[in-house]
Protein backbone atom coordinates (compact mmCIF):
# COMPACT_ATOMS: atom_id res chain seq x y z
CA UNK A 1 0.00 0.00 0.00
CA UNK A 2 1.55 3.27 -1.08
CA UNK A 3 1.39 6.44 0.95
CA UNK A 4 1.60 10.03 -0.17
CA UNK A 5 4.59 12.09 0.95
CA UNK A 6 5.08 15.78 0.37
CA UNK A 7 8.44 17.47 0.87
CA UNK A 8 10.47 20.37 -0.43
CA UNK A 9 13.41 19.04 -2.42
CA UNK A 10 16.05 21.55 -3.50
CA UNK A 11 13.54 24.36 -3.06
CA UNK A 12 10.71 22.76 -5.05
CA UNK A 13 7.62 21.26 -3.45
CA UNK A 14 7.32 17.61 -4.47
CA UNK A 15 4.61 15.06 -3.80
CA UNK A 16 5.28 11.39 -4.40
CA UNK A 17 3.62 8.06 -3.73
CA UNK A 18 5.89 5.57 -1.99
CA UNK A 19 5.82 2.25 -0.27
CA UNK A 20 6.44 2.80 3.47
CA UNK A 21 9.70 0.85 3.27
CA UNK A 22 11.20 3.18 0.65
CA UNK A 23 14.26 5.12 1.74
CA UNK A 24 14.66 8.81 1.06
CA UNK A 25 17.73 7.91 -1.01
CA UNK A 26 15.70 5.72 -3.36
CA UNK A 27 13.08 8.45 -3.82
CA UNK A 28 15.79 10.98 -4.63
CA UNK A 29 17.54 8.72 -7.13
CA UNK A 30 14.73 6.66 -8.64
CA UNK A 31 11.73 9.01 -8.53
CA UNK A 32 13.32 12.43 -8.78
CA UNK A 33 16.42 11.32 -10.74
CA UNK A 34 18.71 13.29 -8.43
CA UNK A 35 21.65 10.94 -8.83
CA UNK A 36 24.36 12.99 -7.11
CA UNK A 37 23.30 11.18 -3.94
CA UNK A 38 25.21 7.91 -4.03
CA UNK A 39 24.32 4.68 -2.26
CA UNK A 40 27.25 2.73 -0.88
CA UNK A 41 26.42 0.48 2.05
CA UNK A 42 22.69 1.19 2.45
CA UNK A 43 22.84 0.70 6.19
CA UNK A 44 24.18 3.97 7.51
CA UNK A 45 27.89 3.24 7.64
CA UNK A 46 29.63 4.77 4.61
CA UNK A 47 28.17 8.29 4.42
CA UNK A 48 28.01 8.45 0.60
CA UNK A 49 24.26 9.15 0.71
CA UNK A 50 24.51 12.14 3.08
CA UNK A 51 22.02 14.93 2.29
CA UNK A 52 20.64 17.85 4.28
CA UNK A 53 17.26 17.37 5.96
CA UNK A 54 15.97 20.70 7.28
CA UNK A 55 19.50 22.03 6.91
CA UNK A 56 21.19 19.29 8.91
CA UNK A 57 23.24 16.41 7.49
CA UNK A 58 21.53 13.04 7.51
CA UNK A 59 21.94 9.67 5.85
CA UNK A 60 19.28 9.31 3.21
CA UNK A 61 19.64 5.50 3.08
CA UNK A 62 18.37 5.18 6.67
CA UNK A 63 15.80 7.98 6.52
CA UNK A 64 12.45 6.57 5.47
CA UNK A 65 10.82 8.71 2.80
CA UNK A 66 7.57 8.48 4.78
CA UNK A 67 9.20 10.13 7.78
CA UNK A 68 10.41 13.22 5.89
CA UNK A 69 6.88 14.35 5.00
CA UNK A 70 6.79 18.13 5.35
CA UNK A 71 10.57 18.46 5.61
CA UNK A 72 13.01 20.31 3.38
CA UNK A 73 15.66 18.18 1.69
CA UNK A 74 18.77 19.52 -0.02
CA UNK A 75 20.98 17.32 -2.17
CA UNK A 76 24.28 18.19 -3.78
CA UNK A 77 22.35 19.35 -6.87
CA UNK A 78 20.55 21.87 -4.65
CA UNK A 79 23.88 23.42 -3.65
CA UNK A 80 25.04 23.87 -7.27
CA UNK A 81 24.90 27.65 -6.95
CA UNK A 82 25.98 27.84 -3.33
CA UNK A 83 29.19 29.90 -3.00
CA UNK A 84 30.47 27.89 -0.01
CA UNK A 85 30.01 24.65 -1.89
CA UNK A 86 31.74 26.16 -4.94
CA UNK A 87 34.79 26.88 -2.77
CA UNK A 88 34.76 23.37 -1.29
CA UNK A 89 34.47 21.77 -4.74
CA UNK A 90 37.36 23.87 -6.02
CA UNK A 91 39.46 22.79 -3.04
CA UNK A 92 38.68 19.10 -3.63
CA UNK A 93 39.73 19.63 -7.25
CA UNK A 94 42.94 21.48 -6.40
CA UNK A 95 44.02 19.25 -3.51
CA UNK A 96 43.17 15.84 -5.00
CA UNK A 97 40.26 15.25 -2.63
CA UNK A 98 38.84 12.49 -4.82
CA UNK A 99 39.85 9.65 -7.06
CA UNK A 100 36.93 7.53 -8.24
CA UNK A 101 34.45 10.08 -6.90
CA UNK A 102 31.90 7.67 -5.48
CA UNK A 103 32.15 8.99 -1.90
CA UNK A 104 32.54 12.60 -3.02
CA UNK A 105 28.90 13.80 -2.82
CA UNK A 106 28.73 12.68 0.82
CA UNK A 107 32.18 14.13 1.51
CA UNK A 108 31.09 17.49 0.04
CA UNK A 109 27.84 17.67 2.01
CA UNK A 110 29.57 16.69 5.26
CA UNK A 111 32.36 19.20 4.61
CA UNK A 112 29.82 21.94 3.87
CA UNK A 113 28.06 21.31 7.17
CA UNK A 114 31.34 21.01 9.07
CA UNK A 115 32.76 24.27 7.74
CA UNK A 116 29.49 26.09 8.51
CA UNK A 117 29.57 24.85 12.11
CA UNK A 118 33.33 24.98 12.72
CA UNK A 119 34.92 27.43 10.29
CA UNK A 120 38.44 27.31 11.79
CA UNK A 121 38.69 23.52 12.04
CA UNK A 122 41.96 21.82 11.10
CA UNK A 123 44.11 18.70 11.29
CA UNK A 124 43.00 15.93 13.60
CA UNK A 125 39.65 17.58 14.30
CA UNK A 126 38.80 17.33 10.59
CA UNK A 127 39.67 13.64 10.62
CA UNK A 128 37.42 13.02 13.63
CA UNK A 129 34.57 15.09 12.19
CA UNK A 130 34.78 13.34 8.80
CA UNK A 131 35.15 9.83 10.20
CA UNK A 132 31.57 9.00 9.24
CA UNK A 133 32.39 9.26 5.54
CA UNK A 134 34.37 6.39 4.07
CA UNK A 135 36.65 6.63 1.04
CA UNK A 136 38.31 3.56 -0.44
CA UNK A 137 40.64 5.36 -2.87
CA UNK A 138 42.43 8.37 -1.52
CA UNK A 139 43.71 7.29 1.88
CA UNK A 140 42.03 10.47 3.16
CA UNK A 141 45.17 12.63 2.98
CA UNK A 142 43.85 14.57 0.02
CA UNK A 143 40.40 14.90 1.52
CA UNK A 144 41.71 16.35 4.80
CA UNK A 145 43.98 18.69 2.83
CA UNK A 146 41.03 19.77 0.67
CA UNK A 147 38.90 20.64 3.69
CA UNK A 148 41.76 22.57 5.33
CA UNK A 149 42.29 24.40 2.05
CA UNK A 150 38.57 25.20 1.81
CA UNK A 151 38.51 26.38 5.43
CA UNK A 152 41.31 28.86 4.74
CA UNK A 153 39.74 29.99 1.47
CA UNK A 154 36.35 30.56 3.11
CA UNK A 155 37.90 32.51 5.96
CA UNK A 156 39.80 34.67 3.48
CA UNK A 157 36.55 35.31 1.58
CA UNK A 158 34.71 36.32 4.76
CA UNK A 159 37.17 39.14 5.45
CA UNK A 160 36.02 42.45 3.96
CA UNK A 161 37.35 43.19 0.48
CA UNK A 162 40.58 45.17 0.44
CA UNK A 163 41.21 44.72 4.16
CA UNK A 164 44.72 43.90 5.24
CA UNK A 165 45.64 42.42 8.59
CA UNK A 166 47.67 45.41 9.80
CA UNK A 167 44.92 47.92 9.06
CA UNK A 168 42.21 45.84 10.69
CA UNK A 169 44.22 45.28 13.86
CA UNK A 170 45.10 48.93 14.35
CA UNK A 171 41.75 50.17 15.73
CA UNK A 172 41.73 47.39 18.32
CA UNK A 173 45.03 48.59 19.74
CA UNK A 174 43.71 52.13 20.06
CA UNK A 175 40.52 50.90 21.72
CA UNK A 176 42.52 48.85 24.19
CA UNK A 177 44.70 51.82 25.06
CA UNK A 178 41.96 54.39 25.46
Amino acid at each position, binding site marked *: MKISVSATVNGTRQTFEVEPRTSLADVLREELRLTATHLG*CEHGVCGACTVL*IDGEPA*RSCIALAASIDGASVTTLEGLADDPTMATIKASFHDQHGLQCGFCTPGMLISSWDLLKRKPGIEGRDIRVAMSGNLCRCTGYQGIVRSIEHAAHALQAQSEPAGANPTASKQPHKEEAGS
Partner: protein
Amino acid sequence: MKPAAFTYHRAATVDEAVAMLADMSVMSRPLAGGQSLVPMLNLRLAPVDRLIDLSRIAALKEIGEEKDRIRYGALTTHAAFEDRRVPDASNGLMPYVGAQIAYRAVRTRGTIGGALALADPAADWLTTVIALEADILIAGPAGRRTVAAADFAVGPYMTALQDGEIVEAVAVPRRSASERWGHEKAARKTGEYAESMAIALIDAARATARLVLGAADGAPIVLARTAAEVAAGRTDDSLSPVIDAELAACGRDFSPAKRRMHATVVLRAVRKAVLASGQRA
Protein backbone atom coordinates in the same frame (compact mmCIF):
# COMPACT_ATOMS: atom_id res chain seq x y z
CA MET B 1 19.69 -3.75 1.72
CA LYS B 2 16.01 -2.97 1.31
CA PRO B 3 13.56 -3.64 4.12
CA ALA B 4 10.75 -6.13 3.82
CA ALA B 5 7.30 -4.57 3.42
CA PHE B 6 5.54 -3.05 6.41
CA THR B 7 2.76 -0.58 7.01
CA TYR B 8 3.49 2.84 8.44
CA HIS B 9 1.51 4.91 10.91
CA ARG B 10 2.43 8.34 12.15
CA ALA B 11 1.26 8.78 15.72
CA ALA B 12 0.16 12.28 16.75
CA THR B 13 0.08 11.67 20.51
CA VAL B 14 1.67 9.37 23.07
CA ASP B 15 -1.71 7.80 23.80
CA GLU B 16 -2.29 7.04 20.12
CA ALA B 17 1.16 5.44 19.81
CA VAL B 18 0.67 3.37 22.96
CA ALA B 19 -2.74 2.18 21.79
CA MET B 20 -1.31 1.05 18.46
CA LEU B 21 1.71 -0.64 20.06
CA ALA B 22 -0.52 -2.42 22.57
CA ASP B 23 -2.41 -4.09 19.71
CA MET B 24 -0.69 -7.47 19.67
CA SER B 25 -2.51 -8.79 16.60
CA VAL B 26 0.36 -7.50 14.44
CA MET B 27 4.04 -7.06 15.22
CA SER B 28 4.53 -3.33 15.72
CA ARG B 29 7.68 -1.38 16.48
CA PRO B 30 8.07 2.26 17.49
CA LEU B 31 10.31 4.42 15.27
CA ALA B 32 12.13 7.37 16.83
CA GLY B 33 15.21 8.70 14.98
CA GLY B 34 15.64 5.43 13.13
CA GLN B 35 19.42 5.44 13.25
CA SER B 36 19.57 1.89 14.61
CA LEU B 37 16.16 0.54 13.64
CA VAL B 38 16.24 1.48 9.95
CA PRO B 39 19.68 -0.11 9.35
CA MET B 40 18.30 -3.24 11.05
CA LEU B 41 15.23 -3.08 8.81
CA ASN B 42 17.49 -2.66 5.78
CA LEU B 43 19.48 -5.73 6.85
CA ARG B 44 16.21 -7.53 7.61
CA LEU B 45 17.37 -8.26 11.14
CA ALA B 46 14.32 -6.68 12.81
CA PRO B 47 11.00 -8.17 11.71
CA VAL B 48 8.11 -5.70 11.74
CA ASP B 49 4.60 -5.63 10.29
CA ARG B 50 3.70 -2.15 11.36
CA LEU B 51 5.97 0.79 12.08
CA ILE B 52 4.65 3.42 14.50
CA ASP B 53 6.47 6.69 13.80
CA LEU B 54 6.82 8.67 17.05
CA SER B 55 8.84 11.48 15.50
CA ARG B 56 5.93 13.94 15.19
CA ILE B 57 4.74 13.65 18.79
CA ALA B 58 5.38 17.12 20.21
CA ALA B 59 5.15 15.95 23.83
CA LEU B 60 8.19 13.73 23.29
CA LYS B 61 10.30 16.77 22.37
CA GLU B 62 9.59 18.81 25.47
CA ILE B 63 12.30 19.83 27.90
CA GLY B 64 11.24 20.39 31.49
CA GLU B 65 13.50 22.31 33.84
CA GLU B 66 12.59 21.31 37.36
CA LYS B 67 14.18 22.33 40.63
CA ASP B 68 16.09 19.11 41.20
CA ARG B 69 16.22 17.63 37.73
CA ILE B 70 15.93 18.22 34.00
CA ARG B 71 13.40 16.23 32.02
CA TYR B 72 14.51 15.51 28.45
CA GLY B 73 11.80 14.36 26.04
CA ALA B 74 12.63 11.00 24.48
CA LEU B 75 13.07 12.58 21.03
CA THR B 76 15.87 14.92 22.13
CA THR B 77 18.63 14.31 19.59
CA HIS B 78 22.29 13.62 20.33
CA ALA B 79 23.09 16.80 18.35
CA ALA B 80 20.85 18.87 20.66
CA PHE B 81 23.07 17.80 23.58
CA GLU B 82 26.24 18.29 21.49
CA ASP B 83 25.21 21.83 20.48
CA ARG B 84 23.98 22.63 24.01
CA ARG B 85 20.55 23.52 22.61
CA VAL B 86 19.15 21.82 25.72
CA PRO B 87 20.07 22.74 29.31
CA ASP B 88 22.71 20.69 31.08
CA ALA B 89 23.00 19.79 34.75
CA SER B 90 25.76 17.19 34.43
CA ASN B 91 28.72 19.59 34.47
CA GLY B 92 29.16 19.02 30.74
CA LEU B 93 29.10 15.22 30.68
CA MET B 94 25.93 14.93 28.59
CA PRO B 95 27.11 17.42 25.92
CA TYR B 96 30.43 15.55 25.77
CA VAL B 97 28.74 12.18 25.36
CA GLY B 98 26.29 13.56 22.80
CA ALA B 99 29.16 14.94 20.71
CA GLN B 100 30.99 11.62 20.37
CA ILE B 101 28.14 9.29 19.44
CA ALA B 102 28.65 7.90 15.95
CA TYR B 103 28.84 10.76 13.38
CA ARG B 104 27.18 14.14 12.92
CA ALA B 105 24.77 12.86 10.26
CA VAL B 106 23.60 10.24 12.78
CA ARG B 107 23.53 12.60 15.77
CA THR B 108 21.16 15.01 14.01
CA ARG B 109 18.46 12.31 13.91
CA GLY B 110 19.30 9.76 16.60
CA THR B 111 17.48 10.30 19.91
CA ILE B 112 18.26 9.62 23.56
CA GLY B 113 14.95 7.83 24.11
CA GLY B 114 15.41 5.60 21.08
CA ALA B 115 18.94 4.71 22.16
CA LEU B 116 17.80 3.82 25.67
CA ALA B 117 14.83 1.76 24.46
CA LEU B 118 17.08 -0.25 22.14
CA ALA B 119 19.55 -0.81 25.01
CA ASP B 120 22.49 -1.80 22.86
CA PRO B 121 25.01 -2.72 25.56
CA ALA B 122 27.79 -0.89 23.71
CA ALA B 123 25.84 2.34 23.15
CA ASP B 124 26.60 5.53 25.02
CA TRP B 125 23.47 6.90 26.73
CA LEU B 126 22.60 3.83 28.76
CA THR B 127 25.89 3.89 30.67
CA THR B 128 25.69 7.68 30.95
CA VAL B 129 22.20 7.91 32.44
CA ILE B 130 22.97 5.09 34.88
CA ALA B 131 26.10 6.99 35.98
CA LEU B 132 24.00 10.14 36.41
CA GLU B 133 21.34 8.25 38.42
CA ALA B 134 18.60 9.32 36.02
CA ASP B 135 15.02 8.09 35.93
CA ILE B 136 13.36 6.70 32.81
CA LEU B 137 9.78 7.93 32.40
CA ILE B 138 7.63 5.32 30.70
CA ALA B 139 4.16 5.55 29.14
CA GLY B 140 2.13 2.45 28.41
CA PRO B 141 -1.35 0.95 28.18
CA ALA B 142 -1.54 0.73 31.99
CA GLY B 143 -0.56 4.37 32.45
CA ARG B 144 2.71 6.01 33.39
CA ARG B 145 5.53 4.79 35.59
CA THR B 146 9.09 5.68 36.44
CA VAL B 147 12.04 3.30 36.55
CA ALA B 148 15.52 4.10 37.82
CA ALA B 149 18.00 3.94 34.93
CA ALA B 150 20.02 1.22 36.69
CA ASP B 151 16.88 -0.97 36.85
CA PHE B 152 15.77 -0.08 33.31
CA ALA B 153 18.59 -1.99 31.65
CA VAL B 154 18.02 -5.70 32.16
CA GLY B 155 20.43 -7.24 29.67
CA PRO B 156 21.74 -6.86 26.13
CA TYR B 157 18.88 -5.24 24.14
CA MET B 158 16.60 -6.00 27.09
CA THR B 159 14.86 -3.35 29.15
CA ALA B 160 12.12 -2.99 31.73
CA LEU B 161 9.75 -1.87 28.92
CA GLN B 162 6.66 -4.07 28.72
CA ASP B 163 4.48 -4.67 25.66
CA GLY B 164 3.02 -1.42 24.38
CA GLU B 165 5.25 0.78 26.52
CA ILE B 166 7.52 3.53 25.22
CA VAL B 167 10.14 5.77 26.79
CA GLU B 168 8.53 9.17 27.22
CA ALA B 169 11.39 11.10 28.80
CA VAL B 170 14.61 10.86 30.78
CA ALA B 171 14.84 12.82 34.02
CA VAL B 172 18.43 13.61 34.97
CA PRO B 173 19.06 14.93 38.48
CA ARG B 174 21.00 18.18 38.76
CA ARG B 175 24.44 16.97 39.79
CA SER B 176 26.49 18.70 42.43
CA ALA B 177 28.42 21.64 40.99
CA SER B 178 31.58 20.33 42.64
CA GLU B 179 31.33 16.92 40.97
CA ARG B 180 33.79 16.13 38.16
CA TRP B 181 33.57 13.39 35.56
CA GLY B 182 35.90 11.18 33.60
CA HIS B 183 34.82 9.34 30.45
CA GLU B 184 36.83 6.65 28.70
CA LYS B 185 35.90 4.63 25.67
CA ALA B 186 37.81 1.92 23.84
CA ALA B 187 36.78 1.71 20.18
CA ARG B 188 38.70 0.62 17.11
CA LYS B 189 37.39 3.47 15.00
CA THR B 190 36.18 6.99 15.77
CA GLY B 191 32.41 6.97 16.23
CA GLU B 192 32.19 3.21 16.36
CA TYR B 193 30.39 1.34 19.13
CA ALA B 194 32.55 0.93 22.26
CA GLU B 195 34.40 -2.25 23.05
CA SER B 196 34.51 -0.91 26.56
CA MET B 197 33.45 2.34 28.17
CA ALA B 198 33.43 3.72 31.68
CA ILE B 199 32.23 6.87 33.40
CA ALA B 200 33.58 8.01 36.75
CA LEU B 201 31.96 10.77 38.80
CA ILE B 202 33.95 12.14 41.71
CA ASP B 203 32.82 14.82 44.11
CA ALA B 204 35.87 15.51 46.25
CA ALA B 205 34.08 18.15 48.32
CA ARG B 206 31.41 15.65 49.38
CA ALA B 207 33.69 12.58 49.33
CA THR B 208 31.38 10.69 46.97
CA ALA B 209 32.11 8.73 43.80
CA ARG B 210 30.15 6.76 41.25
CA LEU B 211 31.57 4.39 38.67
CA VAL B 212 29.81 2.61 35.80
CA LEU B 213 31.23 0.22 33.21
CA GLY B 214 29.45 -0.11 29.87
CA ALA B 215 29.79 -2.28 26.76
CA ALA B 216 30.15 -5.18 29.19
CA ASP B 217 28.17 -7.84 27.27
CA GLY B 218 24.96 -6.92 29.08
CA ALA B 219 23.48 -4.15 31.16
CA PRO B 220 26.07 -1.60 32.35
CA ILE B 221 27.69 -2.54 35.66
CA VAL B 222 27.69 -0.17 38.63
CA LEU B 223 31.05 -0.67 40.35
CA ALA B 224 29.99 0.30 43.86
CA ARG B 225 32.87 -1.21 45.82
CA THR B 226 35.52 0.40 43.62
CA ALA B 227 33.61 3.69 43.79
CA ALA B 228 33.66 3.54 47.60
CA GLU B 229 37.46 3.21 47.50
CA VAL B 230 37.68 6.11 45.04
CA ALA B 231 35.48 8.22 47.30
CA ALA B 232 37.85 7.42 50.18
CA GLY B 233 40.67 8.86 48.09
CA ARG B 234 42.27 5.77 46.60
CA THR B 235 42.90 6.75 42.98
CA ASP B 236 46.49 5.59 42.41
CA ASP B 237 47.69 2.25 41.01
CA SER B 238 46.56 0.48 44.18
CA LEU B 239 43.03 0.84 42.79
CA SER B 240 43.77 -1.77 40.10
CA PRO B 241 43.40 -4.87 42.32
CA VAL B 242 40.12 -3.43 43.63
CA ILE B 243 38.78 -3.06 40.08
CA ASP B 244 40.03 -6.55 39.15
CA ALA B 245 38.32 -8.08 42.16
CA GLU B 246 35.02 -6.36 41.49
CA LEU B 247 35.07 -7.35 37.80
CA ALA B 248 35.89 -10.95 38.76
CA ALA B 249 32.96 -11.02 41.17
CA CYS B 250 30.38 -9.34 38.90
CA GLY B 251 29.12 -12.56 37.36
CA ARG B 252 30.02 -11.81 33.74
CA ASP B 253 32.10 -14.34 31.88
CA PHE B 254 34.76 -12.00 30.47
CA SER B 255 37.74 -13.40 28.61
CA PRO B 256 41.04 -12.49 30.32
CA ALA B 257 41.78 -9.98 27.55
CA LYS B 258 38.34 -8.37 27.80
CA ARG B 259 38.55 -8.16 31.59
CA ARG B 260 41.92 -6.43 31.32
CA MET B 261 40.48 -4.00 28.77
CA HIS B 262 37.55 -3.18 31.06
CA ALA B 263 39.86 -2.75 34.07
CA THR B 264 42.10 -0.40 32.10
CA VAL B 265 39.17 1.66 30.82
CA VAL B 266 37.72 1.97 34.34
CA LEU B 267 41.07 3.11 35.76
CA ARG B 268 41.47 5.68 32.96
CA ALA B 269 37.99 7.07 33.59
CA VAL B 270 38.83 7.47 37.28
CA ARG B 271 42.13 9.19 36.42
CA LYS B 272 40.35 11.61 34.08
CA ALA B 273 37.84 12.48 36.80
CA VAL B 274 40.67 13.00 39.28
CA LEU B 275 42.49 15.20 36.80
CA ALA B 276 39.34 17.25 36.20
CA SER B 277 38.87 17.61 39.97
CA GLY B 278 42.42 18.88 40.37
CA GLN B 279 42.21 21.31 37.50
CA ARG B 280 38.89 22.85 38.38
CA ALA B 281 38.52 22.39 42.13
